[in-house]
């Protein structure tokens, strides 16, 4: 019987000790914490599984409350229920001011283009650029070594399928990636623009056709068909002047290589 009592005494003593320690520590080391953090943290499941890419739910709640990220749907275990709650607590759904977003003027994924040699040097775009303008067939294209992703602290850029992709929900349009890209492929343009050119190749049409399936071959069809004269082709590459563009989408329709895309 006494074995039982000893067991109870010891465990309760340790429990008591820990509780007292925590409570005193809580008092002595109280640090003011802003309440949005508490509110957001309350809706998060608290599984601390790190699936959202942040370090546990506290990390994610902290990033959200400090505005480091706007994306409320990062919590995988919580799924849509939590995303809704967080968005409502953060009041993110409300429309925000005209947003500027970074955009990669290239679609050189593994399907559309290929490499001219296997590059196994330092895996950074600016380094690869020095070596015969990079491994890609199209020397103007995106090499996918992630210099932009490394510099983006919103985590909005991910390298997939050999190319960089920017997630507009995360992008706050700070422009750091545009500076980091050696091929200057990233433009910072208004978020709600309907039409855009996804190519940066200024070579002759025939050369571009050989390098990439969806490259701009400088055929000037878009220029002829555009009433508002928003799109001009200089140096074999179509350029859109967003102030004049009415978003009619005619240029995209008769672009033979399909490199002008219209957002529906």
């Amino acid at each position, binding site marked *: 019987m006494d074995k039982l009592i000893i067991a109870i005494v010891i465990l309760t003593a340790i429990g008591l000790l820990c509780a007292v320690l925590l409570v005193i520590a809580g008092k002595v080391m109280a640090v003011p914490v802003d309440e949005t953090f508490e509110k957001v943290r309350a809706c998060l499941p608290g599984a601390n*599984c790190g699936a959202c890419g942040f370090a546990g739910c506290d990390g994610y709640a902290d990033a959200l409350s400090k505005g480091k990220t706007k994306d409320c749907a990062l919590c995988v*275990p919580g799924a849509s229920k939590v995303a809704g709650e967080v968005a409502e607590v953060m009041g993110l759904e409300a429309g925000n001011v005209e947003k500027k977003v970074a955009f990669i003027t290239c679609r050189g994924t593994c399907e559309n283009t290929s490499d001219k040699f296997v590059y196994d040097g330092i895996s950074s775009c600016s380094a690869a650029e020095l070596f015969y303008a990079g491994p890609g067939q199209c020397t103007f294209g995106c090499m996918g070594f992630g210099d932009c992703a490394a510099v983006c602290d919103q985590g909005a850029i991910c390298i997939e399928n050999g190319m960089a*992709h920017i997630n507009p929900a995360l992008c706050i349009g700070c422009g750091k990636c545009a500076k980091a890209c050696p091929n200057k492929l990233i433009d910072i343009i208004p978020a709600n623009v309907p039409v855009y050119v996804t190519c940066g190749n200024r070579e002759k049409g025939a050369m571009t056709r050989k390098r990439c399936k969806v490259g701009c071959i400088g055929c000037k069809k878009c220029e002829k068909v555009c009433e508002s004269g928003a799109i001009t082709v200089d140096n074999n590459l179509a350029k859109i002047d967003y102030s004049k563009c009415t978003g009619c989408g005619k240029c995209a329709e008769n672009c033979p290589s399909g490199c002008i*895309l219209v957002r529906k």
Partner: protein
Amino acid sequence: MENKKLSILLKGIIKENPVLVLVLGTCPTLAVTTNMISAFSMGISAMIVLVCSNMAISALRKVIPDKVRIPCFIVIIAAFVTLVQMLLQAYLPNIYDMLGVYLALIVVNCIILGRAEMFASKNGVIDSALDGVGMGLGFTAALMAMALIREVIGNGSIAGIAIPGLENFKISLLMMSPGGFLTFGILMAIMAKVTGKEKKLDCGSCPAASMCGKTGEECKGGAADV
């Protein structure tokens, strides 16, 4: 009301399978699945602990102050684990030996504390119990699937009984630790394929994502598929 209860139960098995979808509790999944018996016994003991702790925690959820939330949850879970440990050691010693240190590690198994925090601390006792059963079954099913693959291919036997034909076709790699990762990865891929949740060309990987307004929902026929 009825299908809500059923949905909690079924959710745990496929839709939110703790191992393959929520990716919680991966430590025992890789470690104990070298044979069917230990996988089954680990799954069942984890389920028992999960159900009991879920019920206890959801019963006490209003009483436990936030300051000592995690220590209280963990003490409750540890109590149930030690209980199961003692009973197994007394009545099923060879299973106890087979599970070894991983039985004690059910305490820090991410599923149990995860479900305690995610579900039990916010819902009623019966719902938590159901959720515990659902998650437990999902966990056991995933473990059994892993154990089946690893044991049949790796050791040419099921639950210790050798399969006559496979004597010299054993790939013993699967029984070793790299095999655990490999089988788990392949199982995850199959699961992603089956539930169609594989990382479709969602907006993150679509080159024109930055322009397309439809971020978040599925982009059908968007720029990426053009």
